[in-house]
């Protein structure tokens, strides 16, 4: 867990900034991505949803009706709660398999690794968020290359991550909203006290000296390192560049969000007492994430909603959602195999509805910030049928305008045979102007190529 005492911004300083008004003006240049090709889409958000999906209450009815009784997608057509309907900004994409995982024994809970990488446990490529941010330069001009967030579990472990660096290393997540605030906005808080200004100037000078020293050290190490370790050193170099942006100081004009009041969430970890606060924590993480996009602090973010069991947010669900809802789901699925229990399907749909309500909140915030049309949002679970731990037929939500590369308000059914999810990742990169027709790694190269017709 992230230790609060190590946070860079003192509570007093944060409060001082807030006292100066939430409209505190911060400045940094809005620089275009260095990517050579035109970039229609500008922001990427990836969301992991736990517990699979109850297809019975996910498939839209005729006329893209997603507001029927029990529909888990209903939050996207709920203007009363979210300010407007997002029915026309979403696509319910059916028929994807996490095929790269199926080809490499990366299935069940492990398949979360496949969602954005399009590769299994032995894959060396970055997830699409890091590919865009680092390799395609989408994060080069912003203070943070990317913002990797989670709720519940910070561990960079196989079953708990969707963001992977080039080389195949899972990236840790920030699960404490106060840490998210400090990471994304702390560098822009300015204490107007002259002594504080002098301290900041000195710290900047010292920070530059440290960066010079570490960069030299890393280069010396790189000169001796074997080829197999280059990805590791490249990642370190990227981290130094991110730190340099922070040390050198950049400016931006935006509305600074309020620092979260951490007394409202005294614990943040799964099974460490954090469960009662997960709803609030999720909301705060979402609001901070979108605000970071709005301030151009970053253009790439992922959110891993860890096992949201035992939260008691829905009194109609059992205490242990994982075991008593997801594992008890009984559905014949599209192939007619397996039992059928309507009550179990309705229970899982209620949990899905809860998670989709959080994604609706993301869309609401994006809309309020005027970012929705330029955003590519992909939300996916690691399973379709969670009782079978099946990585096949994983219902997927696409949202945002994708810079014109997505025509919303549709249910796209790719059929029961299982379309490789790599094609979705190809379409994502193409929305950002990357002219490549494949994504991911697999011993079965046939699954890597091709895109989806989303327009």
């Amino acid at each position, binding site marked *: 867990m992230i230790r609060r005492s190590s946070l860079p911004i003192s509570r007093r300083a944060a409060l001082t900034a807030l006292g100066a008004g939430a409209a505190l003006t911060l400045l940094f240049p809005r620089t275009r991505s260095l990517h050579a090709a035109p970039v229609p889409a500008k922001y990427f958000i990836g969301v992991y949803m736990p517990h699979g999906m109850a297809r019975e209450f996910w498939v839209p009815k005729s006329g893209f009706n997603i507001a029927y009784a029990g529909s888990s997608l209903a939050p996207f057509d709920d203007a009363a709660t979210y300010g407007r309907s997002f029915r026309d900004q979403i696509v319910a994409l059916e028929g994807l398999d996490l095929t790269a995982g199926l080809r490499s024994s990366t299935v069940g809970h492990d398949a979360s690794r496949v969602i954005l990488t399009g590769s299994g446990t032995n894959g060396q490529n970055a997830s699409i968020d890091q590919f865009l941010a680092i390799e395609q330069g989408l994060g080069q001009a912003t203070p943070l290359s990317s913002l990797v967030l989670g709720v519940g579990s910070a561990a*960079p472990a196989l079953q708990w991550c969707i963001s992977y660096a080039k080389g195949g*290393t899972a990236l840790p997540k920030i699960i404490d909203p106060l840490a998210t605030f400090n990471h994304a906005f702390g560098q822009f808080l300015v204490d107007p006290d002259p002594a504080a200004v002098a301290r900041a100037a000195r710290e900047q000078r010292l920070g530059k000296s440290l960066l010079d020293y570490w960069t030299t050290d890393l280069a010396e190490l790189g000169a*001796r390192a074997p080829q197999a370790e280059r990805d590791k050193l490249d990642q370190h170099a990227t981290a130094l560049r991110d730190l340099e942006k922070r040390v050198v100081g950049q400016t931006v004009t935006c509305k600074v969000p309020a620092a979260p009041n951490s007394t409202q969430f005294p614990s943040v970890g799964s099974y460490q007492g954090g469960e009662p606060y997960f709803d609030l924590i999720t909301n705060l993480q979402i609001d901070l994430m979108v605000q970071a996009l709005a301030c151009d602090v970053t253009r790439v973010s992922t959110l891993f909603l860890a096992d949201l069991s035992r939260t008691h947010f829905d009194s109609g669900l059992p205490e242990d959602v994982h075991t008593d809802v997801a594992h008890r789901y009984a559905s014949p699925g599209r192939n007619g195999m397996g039992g059928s229990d309507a009550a179990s399907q309705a229970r899982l749909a209620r949990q899905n509805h809860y998670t989709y309500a959080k994604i609706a909140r993301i869309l609401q915030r994006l809309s309020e910030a005027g970012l929705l049309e330029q955003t590519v949002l992909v939300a996916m679970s690691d399973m379709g049928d969670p009782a079978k731990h099946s990585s096949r037929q994983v219902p997927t939500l696409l949202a945002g305008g994708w810079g014109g590369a997505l025509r919303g308000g549709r249910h796209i059914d790719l059929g029961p045979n299982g379309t490789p999810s790599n094609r979705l990742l190809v379409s994502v990169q193409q929305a950002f102007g990357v002219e490549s027709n494949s994504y991911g790694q697999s011993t079965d190269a046939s699954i890597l190529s091709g895109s989806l017709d989303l327009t």
Partner: protein
Amino acid sequence: MGCALFALCASCGGSAEPATDSGPPEQSLAPALRRLSTAELEASAETMLGTVTGLSAALPPDARQSDYSRNVAQSVDSLLLGQLFDASRSTAENLDLSLPQFPSCARTALASDRACAESTVKMLSNTAFRRAPSAREVEQLLGLFTIGAEGADFNSGVALVVRALLGSPKFLYATTLGAATPGATRLSNEELGSELSLLISGQPPDEELRLAAARGELDSGVERERQSLRLLHTWQARHLYRRFVQEWLGLVGLEGLAKSSQVITGFPELRTAMVDETNQFVDDVFSLQAGSVSALLAGGYDIVPDALAGFYGIQPTSPGPGARVDLTGLGRVGILQQASFLATFAHESESAPVLRGKAVLTRLMCLDFPKPTDLGVDIVFPPADPNATTRERYDRHATDGACRGCHATLDGVGFLFENFDAAGKLRTSESGRPIDTSGSVQLDGQQLALGDSMALSSALAKSEQVRQCAARQVVRFAAGKTDALVEQAFVDSLKSKSPERRGTFLGLFLEFVKSDWFAWRKPQ
């Protein structure tokens, strides 16, 4: 650890050991940069500065590979580096230059005292780099000292040097790159010292080891063993082996688990006591029995914290805190019957024969099993049935041909633990029906029918297959990755060793450290 270590040392004294290593082995590990685990980073920072830093809690958690946090997959990402930058600044703001980690001149030195600054820089970088710094490196650090002290004081100069060292790639990465020789790479003298110290004690090398490394004495496997025996006496080594056992057996997962209130209340507090129990037990076995595999599995005793006594159904503090108690009458003969293992490998509301069986078969016997989806099998969780025992609900595994292949093995071991519920509490019945703990295991080529998990532990404790798996686990921990060829070569090399060596973890660690697999790497 005195008695046990003396026995280990005595056991090797009679054999003719080469004065220097015998050259590159046929199978070698790949050269690597390994970012230290957060525990190693914290231990190194605290050794360097003499103060508690809390560094590991300030950093993102480690990635694990082959179950171990000490691994070559660790990296320096933006989040870690940013948090390290902040934490090291806080640490540097609270330096105590009166501690013995600093030269005595540092207490009163002025910012202009270059000689004292140089002494300080050398002392700090000796620890941070796990070797003596070069003259150029000292000059670079003195340059930073000057920048930090400018317009300030001596302490501020040292603070900037400390920040520089804590963020330096030379501090963050342990290298096994060596100096290339035709056909193979032998670790440099400094790398030998660094690797030995980090592997045996989780610490940077102390002065004695650094000097031995600089003199080239660690060329000798015998000298590496002698240094290892010395370091095993440190309290830091105790913490390292606690972590090794927790990660080997997967017990680190316990902190991320909950139990249904229908099974037990107050689990978070009990969880802490469960970890304490295992730590005390591991300390005892490593200190007094050199980490004997058989003692860990079937020592016939336990060390139970008071907070766990009621859970186990015994009186607290009897016969006294930290004392050994015999729980075999309550079905517990070793670490596999401790609540930490039983609760980790169980579901929230029910026992988990498959998880328990798999844990034993993969972690203690080093077997692999395909995932059901690899075989095209859809998982069907047994439905809840208040009138059936867990064992009865898992009957489908035995009748479904697609499942039986693996589950006859997995469940046969897992059922042996059925007298323990989801939290690890002893039970004699479930759903009003008596518990059946019979099961089986194929061990050392023999199919054994067993009555309960204590019988399993006793069999595992005597097993050659388990001893070989323990050796493989030591290689995985040391290498920071799985390398089947080196593991097999190391296992083969142990056939001629004494039971004290082959059957104890400390013996296995010593054998690995003195071996050529420790000292050599593949050519780049």
